């Protein structure tokens, strides 16, 4: 098994699934400005998806391009973490999911800047600028909504409590992750997790939200292709056109 190929797929699918989820909110944001901001994030993530999956396809060397890897693989072949496939829910759910993702994503991209693989470092260099802004934006909204009205506070706390169980997987390394760390191509889990917990702790304190326990029970399996029930619906919508009209282009 080519660990790097698998690792690249994970990065690509994380960005792709979250981008697809955010795209569904296009035109439905709570305000025009929010709508555009969220769609911008979706587009940023789609751009990153293309870089990861293109590199994965080249590395694999079997002629699969970004589109084939995105549109012609079923749920059990998807390698995204379960966090990104969780439903958009209310705006609190959407923003909390985004904040957890952005925090992890930002520190991961910082780590990948120093990857021994120059192509990965290059992609991370492009992604980290976008991730910096994403994190600033979602952190800002978590503070505003957490430290907002009674209703917004309650919804943000509920969203945090619901989604927390999907954050453990981000730092649960398997053989593929560990092989990347051994090649010094990816950062170790411990440092990432510490940075994640520290930043979430700071923002939650400012947002007057109670931070769930880092030792809580955590879901796992997305990176190995075991997904929650939501992913199938996401893929059904996203892949419909290529499935119904194979090879169609426009």
């Amino acid at each position, binding site marked *: 098994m080519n660990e790097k190929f698998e690792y690249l797929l994970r990065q690509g699918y994380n960005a792709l699934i979250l981008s697809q989820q955010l795209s569904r909110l296009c035109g439905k944001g709570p*305000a*025009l*400005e929010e709508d*555009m*901001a969220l769609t*911008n994030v979706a587009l940023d993530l789609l751009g990153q998806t293309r870089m990861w999956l293109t590199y994965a396809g080249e590395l694999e060397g079997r002629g699969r391009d970004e589109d084939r890897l995105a549109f012609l693989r079923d749920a059990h072949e998807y390698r995204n973490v379960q966090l990104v496939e969780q439903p958009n829910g209310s705006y609190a759910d959407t923003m909390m999911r985004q904040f957890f993702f952005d925090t992890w994503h930002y520190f991961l991209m910082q780590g990948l800047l120093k990857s021994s693989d120059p192509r990965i470092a290059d992609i991370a260099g492009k992604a980290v600028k976008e991730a910096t802004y994403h994190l600033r*934006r979602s952190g*800002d909204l978590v503070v*505003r909504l957490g430290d907002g009205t009674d209703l917004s506070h309650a919804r943000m706390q509920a969203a945090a409590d619901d989604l927390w169980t999907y954050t453990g997987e981000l730092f649960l390394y398997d053989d593929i992750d560990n092989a990347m760390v051994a090649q010094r191509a990816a950062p170790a889990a411990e440092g990432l997790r510490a940075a994640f917990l520290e930043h979430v702790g700071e923002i939650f304190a400012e947002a007057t939200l109670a931070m769930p326990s880092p030792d809580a029970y955590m879901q796992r399996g997305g990176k190995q292709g075991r997904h929650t029930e939501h992913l199938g619906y996401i893929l059904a919508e996203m892949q419909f056109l290529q499935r119904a009209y194979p090879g169609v282009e426009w």
Partner: protein
Amino acid sequence: MSKEWPLWEVFIRSQHGLAHKHVGSLHAPDAGMAINNARDVYTRRNEGVSIWVVRAADIVASSPADKDALFEPANSKVYRHPTFFPMPEEVKNL
């Protein structure tokens, strides 16, 4: 108090050395979010290097009704333009 977010006017400087230019307006609850929103709404295509936001309510504007009194008298005073005066040939690089 109105439940609508206040209106902000957005000014973007497209490159160093140029002045900030008015590009439009948006709604935001405070200055910090106005900057963020301006970034998302008005700089998506690499338009700027700097953003100013100003509460629309804080802008003091001249009244359209005063147009004649304020601007009309200048119309007939073309000599206020430097190009009105012919320059002697001998004066170079002025």
